[in-house]
């Protein structure tokens, strides 16, 4: 659904989405990197279980919550993707131990 602008530039960054290898450009937020990799939904809500995807991309809506390097409820749009980062979609509530 999302495509990079033709003049997008930056170094390639390798990370994983739910254990699968993925690539982003340096400077991408995790949320942008998910979109660039065709991810449609990144989490489900804690009460009703409805699917959610990054929306505001500026730290306000909290719809882009994901698990990053074993820590749940991270705002994907507020974290830059780093080499080797493990990003996981989050189903419902976060686990307290991660």
């Amino acid at each position, binding site marked *: 659904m999302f495509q990079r602008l033709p003049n997008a530039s930056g170094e390639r960054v390798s990370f994983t989405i739910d254990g699968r290898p993925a690539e982003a450009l340096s400077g991408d937020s995790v949320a942008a990197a998910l979109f660039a990799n065709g991810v449609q939904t990144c989490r489900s809500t*804690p*009460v009703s279980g409805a699917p959610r995807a990054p929306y505001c991309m500026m730290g306000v809506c909290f719809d882009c919550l994901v698990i990053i390097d074993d*820590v749940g*409820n991270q705002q994907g749009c507020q974290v830059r993707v780093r080499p080797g980062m493990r990003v996981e979609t989050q189903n*419902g*509530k*976060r*686990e*307290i*131990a991660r």
Partner: protein
Amino acid sequence: MSAHNRPDYDIAVVGGGLVGSATAWGLARLGQKVAILDEGDIAVRPSRGNFALVWVQGKGLGMPEYAGWTKGSSDRWTGFAGMLRDQTGIDVHYERPGGFMPLLSEAEVEARAAQLSRLHNQPSMVRYDYEMLDRAAVAKEMPYIGKDVVGASYCALDGHCNSLRLLRALHAGLGLHGAAYLPNHRVERIEPRDGGFRLITSAGELGAGKVVLAAGHDSARLAPMVGLSAPVRPERGHIIVTEKTAPFLKFPVGYIRQTDEGGVMIGDSFEDVGFDTTVRNGVTSTIAERAIRIFPLLGKLNVVRTWAALRVMSPDGFPIYEQSTSAPGAFVATCHSGVTLAANHALALAPHIAAGRLPEEFTVFSARRFDVPKAA
């Protein structure tokens, strides 16, 4: 009272918080024509800020009748929640898994054991079981307790609910029972007249055969208008709520509990600061630190909200229920445990008010107990 002079309502309940709503719901359920007079959004509203425990253990030292009243309400809660669900479709998520009061030193263990022993040794104390548990027994139920937890007291009667849903269910139920909820009707004056009452509000006057003052802090102002007294004062409590988390804590643990929707509530502060609901960071960090000592895992969670609310406290901390002698259709009901006692207000107090007389066993809850001159 002649037919043409019939008041607008059988009963006017002043206050739309948990005490007023539960009492009004119980009255409307019995077929009384009820109006609930509430203030607007600027009112001090403990019913929107409480901790949602239905708690029994430790209550009633100095007034064993209060322990009995509390246990009675706890015993009625399952049925009460079922009635609300059947009537409104709203599940208030009442659970009664038993509650722990965590203790972080041998001194705390000794003090708690002595306090509960004194409580249960009172003459005419209601009988129920509680246990003092050592660390191993607590860890058996909650393996993730912190190393500082030395033990806990436990009582199987303790529970909790979703108190915002409780308030919503009561209001929905009031509507279904045909009661009139009248917000933005601050009561300015109450005049006993013709065996009934005229209530002069910010939005007009109305008449009622009886009046119930359940206005929380504002009952202190209103009670003298009908020959009653409600010397209540605000006591500030802070609450912290974390992000929603997968269920890990089944039990209410003193001032820590996980809600049905996953957030963890922490609320363990008591301050006498008047009508000030400002959140103080020093207080929230202190209660958060203690909570983390009890459950170190909590340290990983993000806080999503903090707030402060004002408990409605009488001079001895026990409820006030009283019927006016000068205007016998007027009643006052106030307490700081509007959730725990909601079942009793709806199912045990309301029928007496509908019948027009508080029986003998309520005498102990009269505000006249505060009239004793202070000893030199």
